[in-house]
């Protein structure tokens, strides 16, 4: 495989200094994700999966080790460059949807383009296109409070896709949804992945992980398992 990995972690470690001493949350993670992969990251509470997620999303920087995002060494970048990277290369989907309540759906979806200095007319056109792609055509002028949780998560996914990023990171994307809606959202993710989108999903639910093509399990800040999703996960779904 000659393609540049989307994610390349080399001995990534993260320490938190607290009053009680230094906590080694990540203890040397090696992880490579290639374009087009669909990876699920699992692990119990305290295993460091949220911290890894933050580092992968450029919201945090590792204490030591190297993290290359689409070939760029994140550790060498300053804040404005990190913001630009978050804007252009990564799309975020959160558990709590995190939409702006007083903005319309198309304004919410177009928001990342504001920071990419895209003009208003083009912003709207692109926002409408991705809203249609996630099945929300006709809702452009609605407000987040007026639609269902599943629909809100679709809007969040549309917002993650609008800048055409190299990677979509989803943190417990189905945590606030019922089983049926969860399946719909995961189907949407699977469809995006079939179109070539690289996906990393953090979850603690085996049925969610079952949609992925590869499973990474963390325990105590280290990779405990990295390989295909076990068959019993699929049976559960």
């Amino acid at each position, binding site marked *: 495989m000659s393609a540049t990995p989307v994610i390349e972690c080399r001995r990534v470690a993260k320490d938190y200094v607290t009053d009680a001493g230094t906590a080694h949350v990540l203890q040397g993670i090696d992880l490579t994700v290639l374009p087009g992969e669909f990876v699920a990251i699992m692990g119990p509470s305290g295993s460091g999966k949220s911290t890894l997620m933050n580092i992968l999303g450029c919201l945090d920087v590792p204490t030591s080790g190297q993290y290359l995002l689409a070939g760029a060494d994140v550790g060498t970048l300053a804040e404005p460059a990190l913001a630009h990277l978050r*804007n252009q290369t990564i799309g975020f989907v*959160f558990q709590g949807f995190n939409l702006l309540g007083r*903005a319309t759906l198309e304004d919410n979806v177009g928001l*990342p383009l504001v920071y990419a200095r895209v003009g208003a007319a083009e912003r709207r056109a692109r926002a409408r296109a991705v809203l249609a792609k996630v099945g929300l055509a006709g809702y452009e002028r609605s407000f987040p409070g007026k639609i269902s949780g599943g629909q809100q998560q679709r809007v969040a996914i549309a917002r993650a896709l609008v800048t055409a990023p190299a990677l979509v990171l989803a943190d417990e994307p189905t945590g606030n949804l019922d089983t049926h809606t969860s399946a719909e959202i995961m189907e949407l993710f699977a469809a995006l992945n079939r179109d070539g989108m690289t996906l990393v999903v953090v979850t603690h639910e085996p049925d969610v992980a079952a949609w992925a093509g590869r499973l990474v399990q963390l325990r105590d800040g280290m990779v405990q398992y990295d390989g295909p999703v076990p068959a019993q996960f699929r049976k559960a779904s």
Partner: protein
Amino acid sequence: MLREAFAAMAANRMRAALTMLGMVIGVAAVILMLAIGRGVEDSVSRSIASMGSNLFIVLSGSAAQGGLRMGSGNAPTLTLDDAAAIAGLPGVLAAAPTLPGSAQVVYGSANWGTQVNGTTPEYLDVSSWGVADGAVFDDSDVRGATRVAMLGQTVVDNLFGAEDPVGRTIRIKNAPFVVVGVMSRRGQSLDGRDQDDTVLVPVTTAQRKLFGAQFQGMVRFITVKADSEAAMPGVEDGINALLQERHRIRDGADPDFTVRNMTAIAETAAQATRMMALLLGAIASISLVVGGIGIMNIMLVSVTERTREIGIRMAIGAARAHILWQFLLESIVLSLFGCLIGVALGVAGAYVVSHTTEITTIVSAGSIALGFSVAGGIGVFFGFYPARKASRLQPIEALRFQ
């Protein structure tokens, strides 16, 4: 970005309006106070201009009777000869001796109590006073102590109404006087006295036929006009030296006269009003600062409330500078809007004040420009701290904020 600032304000209309109220009151107060200050200053400088410039008044000294000191102007020490001698000093344009008194003036069935000043024709030159009708009595009238009079406009209004007074005969203290002229209208003096409520007669006539004089040629005061402002110090020294010599006052002894520089008094008055205007403006600007603190307060609350929003924005690619500008713009928009309403209110207030009270107000473009720049500055100054606080948030913590 600007649209977002308006949207944030629209989302919290009541709060935005209350926040702006501080700025509105502050700016309106500054505009109104400056307008009142400028108006007062203007009317003072107009009074000063009407009084005439480069003036001295030489008053006779205090009389003392058995330890009772009567105050300036009561001792009969100045004479017509003193005035003539002062007029001959270098740098002196003219000197007018005056013997004032009050008298009842009668014309036909009308009568009017007024001030009657015995003086010389120089009096009008010295006080830069014009003639509206007729002519000034001349030196031969002074020499001959003739019964002629010049009237101020207020006296004309009260005795003659619409009738032409020149050539008519009035009675002052029951003696007939022919009206030879009318002075032009002059308005109020600095202390609010009506300068037009006066009658001028030859000084000799006043001495001999109206008020009497304790000795030959006595006058109460002498008004002296210098050639120029530059000549004033020399003239003042000259008058002092001349009168000390004429009145035989030994060095170090109290003089029996006082020389007052009227221009200096006027300048003091002008400076006092300027100080008052500044003080009013300064007090008003305190409310502007209070308004600014109100904005800062609300912006801080807003930053805390919207921590999660800030986190979302950062996660999807807003740089710290974007967040800083977003909040800074919001506070600038708030304060400029407040300022706009404040200017309108201040100008309206100034209009109301000048139309309902005696005070004239002048709203200058400068004070409006000042209001806007100060409001913009306050928006930046008091908005910067909350905006910086917002931009310094850690995205992870901001996202975790509920």
